[in-house]
């Protein structure tokens, strides 16, 4: 994988993936914690 592709991945795709994680956790834990 070329460096420029890796750069785009960590600067654009990685932050979006991390932002998606708490949203998934929010949905997943919703039913768990309210029980």
């Amino acid at each position, binding site marked *: 994988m070329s460096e420029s592709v*890796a750069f785009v991945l960590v*600067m654009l795709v990685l932050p979006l993936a991390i932002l998606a*994680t*708490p949203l998934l956790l*929010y949905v997943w834990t919703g039913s768990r914690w309210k029980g």
Partner: protein
Amino acid sequence: MSLDAKALAFGAYFLIILVIGVWATRFSSRGVSEYFIGARSVPRFVVALSAVVSGRSAWVFTGLAGLAYRDGASAVWYIVGFTIAEMLLFFFFAIRVRRFGEARDCVTVTDILAARLDDRVGRLRVAVAVPIVIFYTAYIAAQFDAGGKALAQNYGVEGHTAIIATAGIILFYTLLGGFLAVSYTDAIQAVFMISALVLLPILLIPAEGGWAVVVQHLNPSAMDPMKIFIGMMIGGIGLGLGSGGNPHIVARYLSIRDADGLRFAGVIGTLWNVVMCWCAVLIGISGQAVFRGETTLATKQASETVLLQLTQAYLPPLLAGFVLAALFAAIMSTADSQLLVVASSIVRDLVQRVIFKGTELSQRMLVMLSRLVVLGVTAAAVAVAWRGAESLHALIVLAWSGVGGGARAATDPLRLLGTSYRNWRHSWHPLRDRNRPLLGH
């Protein structure tokens, strides 16, 4: 940037802080819970921003941008480490702390440990509270010194006057408004910080001829995100997990209006961390193109001024003034939180729960005592900062890292197990119940 714009921005910022301090006074005067954790009624959005900003503070502007300037895109792995760690703390640790805190009427981290480990005599309280008081006071002194230096460098105020001014501003709103004032000023600071960090690359990159031109002037290794991967990740995870061990972060967990709101706070906190920190990395990397061939920024210390230099060069004067004010406020936000931690350790843990155990003290009297302690600790910290010897601060940092880190390393597993232990409603003691399993029943 002219001094007028800087002074105007600082004046406006200072006015906002004063208004918040005065506004929160009446509420904070009702009792210890109101003064130290906002009576568990702080909105989730404010808790999210306050927890993130208290953990990051001025480091995003200086340390992180400098790291990206020196090591390029690898710096993102540091962010990945602490962002994920803090997010998991919000979802799986903070909620337990908040629920336990409400069930057992805990106001401080010492309260939680004492309740969890059934400390009826008060030895544990003394063992935890006394080191907190000593080392946090020393740490506050270092913050006053740092704030004084920032004020002296950017606004031309004389050294000792700058220390007094820093301490005076912090004292004013912390003494009056307590936790509520500290949290709301943190939230406003978070908005200033994110605005500056998003706006700067938007103005900077086109001014340099676009991203294609910036890339041409980067060091070849800056584009390689895998240059330092494992080390950055481990360092970031350590930083993130450590934030849940800080008494002032635990106070934020305890302060939220409802425990379930910490899930929302986890989403907002992560959003803020990601946007602020990725922008700071982008700014640091772009700095390589702007300052290409600049040898004066080669050292670690000098590289940490990159973002401030770019702020002054590319942001409009008034906004740049606000960034400087936000940087100063970031230093203040650490000191104000520490002041409340020291005061709560003395008043709640030592006076109310050990010295006057079994005696009913009025809430108004305890708040008055808390305010006196805040005043006294501020005076003690100013006295330490006044002497200002560099070696003294080196000693403080060393002591803080060693003893503070050691104490936290000792208590963190207890806290984590204590909040995860299924049968937490019943008291458990590691020495008394040797045959009882730590986890699971």
